[in-house]
């Protein structure tokens, strides 16, 4: 026990803040990430995070709290994606990519101008790779509240979101306003990405969004269970990452901690790779097409649960 929890871990203020924020971030990203993976929007989620970098570095330039910068840029990017139509497959990756490139260019400029102004180095590192141990306690209520709101929105829309993820046409036929649901979902995604950006850095927030959800969706086929597994996996990775990062001050090179983000990402990855090992043995006797269906199979289950037909998993 003593080897894992170095002395002073739980009495340290920054660590307690980090554990609390980390929990909110992991649960929000875990739940929302399930929809991101189901909707095949990994690239959109990652782009949102990268565009948030621009906001974070802009906030750094004008001296605001980075979270507000992440949030503003994330929501603006979500609105832009909705406008260019992320639902439309054709050409969407290219349009996303071009917007992303321009936004990253602007981030480069902001960071450069910021470093001219304040002469503090390391801002680019904080924006890109996060610094969960230096979150000021003043922002914690705002972070927790944003996470709860995002979770609430997604929970309220869960059924409809699942349906629009399977088949927008079917949802439309049943009188669902697909566009509105899409906007609400993207806004929640923007909030969750901004939270993750504060915790483990803008470019790494994808790890918490995609990793635990992809792992969960490989382990279970039920969407509700997937959300729970995903939130728990994310939580475990984040907390363990924080503890290991705290311990790493005692590792070589001496007196220099390893970044939390690295541990979180590595643990998330380990979880995903483990999901490859385990179900393979259980699944072997089933139909060979099982694997190809993947997320569609889950969605099909959801659609059946929602009382619809025709969304069964049929191998192409």
């Amino acid at each position, binding site marked *: 026990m003593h080897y894992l929890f170095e002395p002073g871990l739980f009495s340290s203020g920054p660590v307690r803040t980090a554990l609390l924020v980390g929990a909110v971030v992991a649960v929000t990203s875990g739940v929302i990430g399930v929809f991101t993976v189901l909707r095949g929007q990994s690239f959109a989620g990652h782009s949102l995070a990268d565009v948030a970098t621009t906001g974070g570095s802009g906030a750094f330039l004008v001296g605001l709290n980075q979270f507000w910068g992440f949030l503003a840029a994330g929501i603006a990017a979500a609105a832009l994606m909705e406008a260019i139509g992320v639902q439309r497959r054709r050409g969407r990756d290219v349009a996303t*990519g071009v917007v*992303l490139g321009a936004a990253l260019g602007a981030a480069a400029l902001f960071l450069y101008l910021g470093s001219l102004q304040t002469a503090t180095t390391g801002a680019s590192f904080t924006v890109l790779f996060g610094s969960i141990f230096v979150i000021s306690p003043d922002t914690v209520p705002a972070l927790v509240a944003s996470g709860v709101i995002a979770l609430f929105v997604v929970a309220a829309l869960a059924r409809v979101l699942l349906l629009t993820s399977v088949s927008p046409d079917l949802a439309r036929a049943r009188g669902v306003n697909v566009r509105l649901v899409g906007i609400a979902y993207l806004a929640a995604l923007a909030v969750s990405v901004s939270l993750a950006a504060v915790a483990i850095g803008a470019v790494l927030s994808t790890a918490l969004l995609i990793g635990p959800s992809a792992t969960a969706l490989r382990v279970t086929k039920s969407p509700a269970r997937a959300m729970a597994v995903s939130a728990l996996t994310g939580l475990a990775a984040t907390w363990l990452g924080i503890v290991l990062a705290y311990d790493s001050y005692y590792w070589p090179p001496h007196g220099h901690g390893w970044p939390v983000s690295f541990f979180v990402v590595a643990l998330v990855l380990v979880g995903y790779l483990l999901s490859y090992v385990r179900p393979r043995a259980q699944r072997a006797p089933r139909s060979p097409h099982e694997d190809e269906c993947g997320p569609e199979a889950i969605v099909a289950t959801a659609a059946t649960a929602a009382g619809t037909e025709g969304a069964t998993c049929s191998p192409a």
Partner: protein
Amino acid sequence: MLNTWIAASIVAVIAGITGFFAVLRGQTFTAHAIPNGAFAGAAGASLLGINVIWGLVVFALCGALGIGALGAEGRGRKARNDVVTALALVLMLGLGALFVSISSQYAEETYSLLFGEVFGVSRGEVLPILGLGVAAAVAIGVAFRPLMLTSALPEVAEARGVSTRRMDLYFLIVMALATSMTVPVVGALLMFSLMIGPAAAARSVTARPGAAMALSVVIALATVWLSIALSYQTNWPLGFFVGTIGAAFYLIGLAARAVAPRRAVAPRGAVG
């Protein structure tokens, strides 16, 4: 300065060519992930005190092979590949964060690796860049026809016995090679703009593969040259100009397509 200019021109030519295929094959995300991941290799190499190019080559290749190995085929392939790509990307970025934080000289080094630097290219780096550039160009030239076929008509390619999966892997490796030489010049985050912006602009103007590829190279060269000149004048980061000029060319391309007669529209289903 001259070194940078030579290196950047080589980079632009290769980015134009590989970018054309990346856009055609719908591998925008991969084109984003491999350079970003390669950044970790550069950080690791500078930690060990070896030439960053070798760190870049190793990480870009590992990233490409990892994405290729875990990637899927058949239905739902794109969504699954995106997940794998995203995870490979964050793993490599996380390693990069670790390397950068362990090495003491982080702020400057990270910044120039991520966002590029006009004076970032030394004389010793030009030769490996040229070598990798030629290798990437030859690799694409040799496999031009199967690459085109699997990009545009995967079913036909399969019917003719060309494995789409093998071509995917082949192209990923070429992209990794192209990436390794680009990162020191335009930076990891912006390499991607240089691949996607010009290629997308070119494709919206013409549907003929040869013409689109040539145009893509020309636009990439124009982007890089303009960026270097502007960056030299203003002292602002090179990446900023590459990103915005690339996006501007894309918008011009879209406008040109809107104005031009309908026959210039790209073939159906070619864009992911």
